[in-house]
């Protein structure tokens, strides 16, 4: 290990069991996106479940809002090193969206306004571990942060929690998404510090 001469650091006061290696805790909510913020009117918004399913499922904004809502408080970890603890979200569990779906799929590719995609194992978006969130801190989700709705998969680095999400494509293969094709890790577990390909 190389000691940086004269560096003392500012020790985090947060519980180390909640802050993965190489992360620091922030109270802000930084924004990172590869392009302009898409703005889609709610009457033109829909959410789809497509790919390896018997029949594509699609919800309008109103239908989506009528689904059972979960409110969750989770810690989130961005690959750019910040973590934010106890963030409160409202949305629909991906389990609810997949309820009754018969599929052989092993992975999902989330697709979004603006063309962003990200890939995840199906097992990582089921079992109460992923949501399509449309509220943050009790308010409608801000467009900068992915509103009207974003994926929320807090146990993986936050680029997996795709902003402006419009649906999930169920797949029997693992198709790399946007950042995964630009050298970021395919899975992205913050606790194993899987930031980049090969980590």
């Amino acid at each position, binding site marked *: 290990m190389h000691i940086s001469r004269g*560096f003392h*650091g500012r020790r985090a006061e947060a519980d180390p069991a909640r802050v993965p290696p190489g992360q620091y805790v922030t109270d*802000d909510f930084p924004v*990172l996106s*590869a392009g*302009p913020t898409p703005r889609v009117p709610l009457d033109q918004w829909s959410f789809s479940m497509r790919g390896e399913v018997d029949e594509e499922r699609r919800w309008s904004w109103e239908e989506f809002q009528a689904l059972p809502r979960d409110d969750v408080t989770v810690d989130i970890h961005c690959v750019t*090193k*910040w973590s934010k603890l106890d963030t409160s979200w409202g949305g629909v569990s991906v389990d609810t969206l997949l309820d009754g779906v018969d599929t052989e799929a092993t992975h999902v590719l989330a697709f979004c306004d603006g063309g962003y995609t990200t890939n995840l194992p199906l097992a990582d978006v089921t079992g109460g571990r992923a949501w399509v969130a449309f509220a943050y801190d009790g308010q409608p989700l801000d467009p900068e942060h992915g509103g009207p709705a974003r994926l929320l998969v807090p146990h993986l680095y936050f680029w997996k929690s795709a902003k402006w999400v419009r649906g999930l494509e169920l797949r029997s293969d693992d198709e790399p998404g946007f950042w995964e094709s630009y050298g970021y890790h395919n899975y992205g577990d913050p606790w194993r510090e899987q930031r*980049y390909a090969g980590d």
Partner: protein
Amino acid sequence: MKWRFATVADVHPETGRTTSIALRVPGWGGHLAGQHVDVRLTAEDGYQAQRSYSIASAPDDDGLVLTVEEIDDGEVSPYLVEELQPGDELELRGPIGGYFVWEESKGGPLLLVAGGSGIAPLRAMLRHRLARNGDVPVRLLYSARKLDEVIYRDELTRAAENDGIDVHLTLTRERPDGWQGYARRIDRDLIAEVAWPPAERPLAYVCGPTPFVEAAADALVSLGHDPGRIRTERFGPTGS
């Protein structure tokens, strides 16, 4: 991705809050203009902190230059700006990011829109374009609070005077007497004046603080530019 040792070859203050750090990185495999690196510092007791910094040098330059802005109550940037000296070693890994990059094959015309220290990766693109002596037209729109916070000011002046690069500065807080440039925050009209019309299909790179990037990218989209040709890199107040 592997951590490497870099040796500080030079530190060069750019403005009161920003310093360029020239590094020698044995085994460095090169980078594309616009990419960044992760820097890791280690305290004597083993405590470590990591942050990302854009590479401000062109792939054509010798060595690697990071231009770092000191963030108030930041953890890493005050060390890099205030403490680091030639001969010190840093750990870094990279290059990282493959989307916010420009190389000649991507063509142009090239519209660079910078807010504050967001100029750093765009300067790498500008230097790369000049080093290759290509014919892609470049326009730079750079917003700073005041003239002495304009990073790379001499270099940008030379690029404008000698190399035909179209450089537009806007100073949002304080202007010297007789200032001829723009004097307001970037808005739709300002972008419309500086940018090529949408029909010319410029390739736009926008980098700066989040509200700046939101405003500039929204303005480009509302003027009719293809969102697929607008690439953004944002840093929040915690980009320390």
